[in-house]
């Protein structure tokens, strides 16, 4: 595969990456953690422990037989105090396990380097690591990497981090760049992929030069600098920006010979292969005018937002919105009682000055949304049909191809709630499909 750098459509955003030069700090183990049984796309995990059980760090708490799923591990050592139902901020209901730590952080006895001598064993290890796509959607990594007979022509490592505020991937590169590059080599070896491209945007020159330096003796790995543009970190956009090829509608990156992995996913996978310790903690960015101690923190999965908020000297009077993820695609937390999950990459404690509250007014047909849409859609038309609940028209205008990047809403001078209406519209199309078989 040859690279052919292309400019994607989209928007230019303010960077606001004020935490990029602050070294990562480890958050103390909280008083209680809550670990949901659904932290990925696919089947939820069944609870494998009972109330009162003692659990170790790295012990499997939940798993299923299903292929599209990923096991969930304990992030602390301690006692299971409750198994309950919860609603994730995606609106999905699932079970969760509440654990009280004993403070010893005792590692599961017998945890050791997995056997990754063959491709099959490697993929098995990926599944056992519980790794999911850490860049966003949370698709189980072993499903993505298992490309069956087809060997990818290139592995694309996503270090783009195109959302404002978020700097955790950047910190991961600066602090653990060596492990990342070794991880890339490992994946290339195990899956016999001939080439890897690590993509970095030009607003992170330090990360670019470091990766380039670290990978310079492996001619399979190429570090590529891309012009900063949102949403270049979206999988399909990134592949296009690098290769000029479009992933077919309803298709997968492997259809055009590529596999995309986030840098932190590569890092987590590498660590698992070296130590056998699955993904139990995450580096997250804490930002926004609602907190004083902004920066990047290593936190155990299951930590409540309120514990992070308190540790970072948050002000509840000022904070009006808590974002899980970036300001363009992140979701809002309904309360401070939400736990950190595998895909968490940032918590932004927003005050009114961080946000843009504006009332919706009539569409003036300016065409800005059309120009901004990286997926070549007609947001203004889709908005009209979504509000009128015209399902057939929505399908005709390819609403299902929308990646909900928010570029259209961002540029709209009438401040129309475009993405919001597309979520409703997509639901209509999905329901109609189910109804018609």
């Amino acid at each position: 595969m040859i690279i052919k750098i292309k400019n994607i459509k989209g928007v230019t955003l303010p960077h606001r990456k004020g935490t990029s030069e602050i070294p990562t700090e480890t958050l103390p183990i909280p008083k209680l953690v809550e670990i949901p049984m659904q932290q990925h796309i696919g089947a939820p995990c069944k609870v494998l422990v009972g109330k009162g059980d003692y659990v170790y760090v790295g012990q499997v708490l939940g798993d299923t037989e299903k292929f599209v799923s990923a096991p969930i591990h304990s992030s602390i050592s301690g006692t299971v105090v409750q198994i309950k139902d919860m609603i994730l901020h995606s609106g999905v209901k699932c079970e969760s396990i509440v654990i009280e730590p004993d403070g010893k952080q005792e590692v599961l006895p017998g945890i050791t380097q997995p056997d990754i001598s063959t491709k099959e064993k490697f993929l098995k290890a990926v599944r056992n690591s519980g790794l999911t796509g850490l860049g966003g959607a949370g698709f189980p990594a072993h499903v993505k990497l298992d490309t069956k007979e087809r060997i990818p022509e290139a592995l694309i490592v996503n270090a783009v981090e195109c959302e404002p505020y978020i700097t955790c991937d950047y910190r991961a590169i600066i602090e653990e760049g060596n492990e990342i590059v070794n991880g890339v080599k490992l994946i290339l070896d195990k899956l016999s992929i001939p080439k890897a491209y690590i993509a970095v945007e030009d607003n992170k020159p330090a990360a670019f030069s470091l990766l380039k330096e670290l990978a310079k003796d492996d001619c399979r790995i190429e570090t590529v600098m891309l012009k900063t543009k949102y949403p270049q970190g979206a999988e399909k956009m990134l592949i296009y920006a690098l290769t000029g090829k479009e992933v077919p509608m309803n298709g997968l990156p492997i259809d055009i010979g590529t596999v995309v992995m986030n840098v932190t996913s590569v890092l987590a996978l590498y660590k698992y292969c070296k130590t056998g310790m699955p993904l139990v903690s995450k580096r997250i960015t804490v930002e926004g005018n609602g907190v004083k101690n902004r920066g990047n923190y290593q936190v155990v999965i299951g930590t409540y937002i309120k514990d992070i908020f308190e540790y970072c000297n948050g002000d509840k009077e000022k904070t009006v919105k808590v974002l899980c993820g970036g300001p363009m695609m992140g979701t809002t937390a309904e309360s401070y009682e939400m736990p950190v999950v595998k895909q968490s990459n940032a918590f932004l404690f927003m005050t009114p000055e961080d946000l843009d509250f504006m009332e919706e007014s009539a569409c003036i047909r300016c065409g800005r949304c059309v120009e901004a849409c990286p997926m070549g859609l007609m947001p203004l038309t889709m908005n009209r049909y979504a509000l009128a609940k015209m399902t057939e028209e929505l399908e005709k205008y390819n609403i299902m191809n929308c990646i909900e990047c928010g570029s259209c809403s961002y540029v709209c001078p009438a401040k129309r709630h475009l993405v919001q209406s597309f979520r409703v519209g997509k639901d209509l199309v999905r329901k109609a499909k189910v109804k018609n078989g």
Partner: protein
Amino acid sequence: MDKLIVSSSPHIKDKATTSRIMLDVIIALMPTAILSVYYFSYVSALIIVASVSSCVLFEYLFNLITKKKHSETDLSCVVTGLILAMNMPPLKSSIILSIIGAFIAIVVIKMLFGGIGQNIFNPAAAARIFLTTAFSSLMTVYVAPLTDGVTAATPLAIPKGELLPSYLDLFLGKTPGSLGETAAVTLIAGGIYLMIRKVITWEIPVIYIGTVALLSFAFGQDPLYSILAGGMMLGSIYMATDYTTSPVTRKGKIVYAAGLGLMTASIRKFGSNTEGVAFSLLFMNALVPLIDKFTVKKTFGRIKKK
């Protein structure tokens, strides 16, 4: 606050707003408006005031009576008023006529169709056509600039063989014509400002003007002359680029602008009407829904059918 706001992404927005865009159009038209006052003195100022204030008032009253959300603050009615004024001949009668025109533009053409973003026809163009049809004797008389009301023929109506104004006069607007359609120099400057501010893109004005130049050359006319005279600049930069009544995609804009050029050049060549711009606008406005339908962008990853 313990209660957090739950809302849909994105959580940040660009600074551009509808009223800021409209303000930019107003700023872009200011030099032309000021020049028209210099050329035609207080008559021009009165026409502008009458036209703008009645456009705002009609929109305000319409919203009041129909109990709709007040839309005047988006400033689009001010833009319509200004453009309408620029379309009026510099006569005292135009003060009254512009109020009638404002009623047609705002109430009949814009608000009854649903307001901004909904109307099919360009309000100012439609009002101009209405006034020219209903009050033809008052709308087709032109006054030479800096003469205190000496009437004259507009350059496009000068019969063959008679002395035509120089390019420089046309460029500076020192020719008889309506308030704002004469001075190419200020209109172009405003257009460049709008492009820098990203309010409009180059496609519509450049292709429209280019097509007219090309066709009039092919018809054996003076191309430079035909684009500098007769409302081409006002029409192509400020009226044809009206968001509501032009296509939304780039491809659509190109088709639309080429269509406008074809219409205008043909009307000027074969029709009796020397002012083809407003007619072409209305005609092409009507085709916009169709153009929009056939110029939908190709969505990402769409496999072309063989």
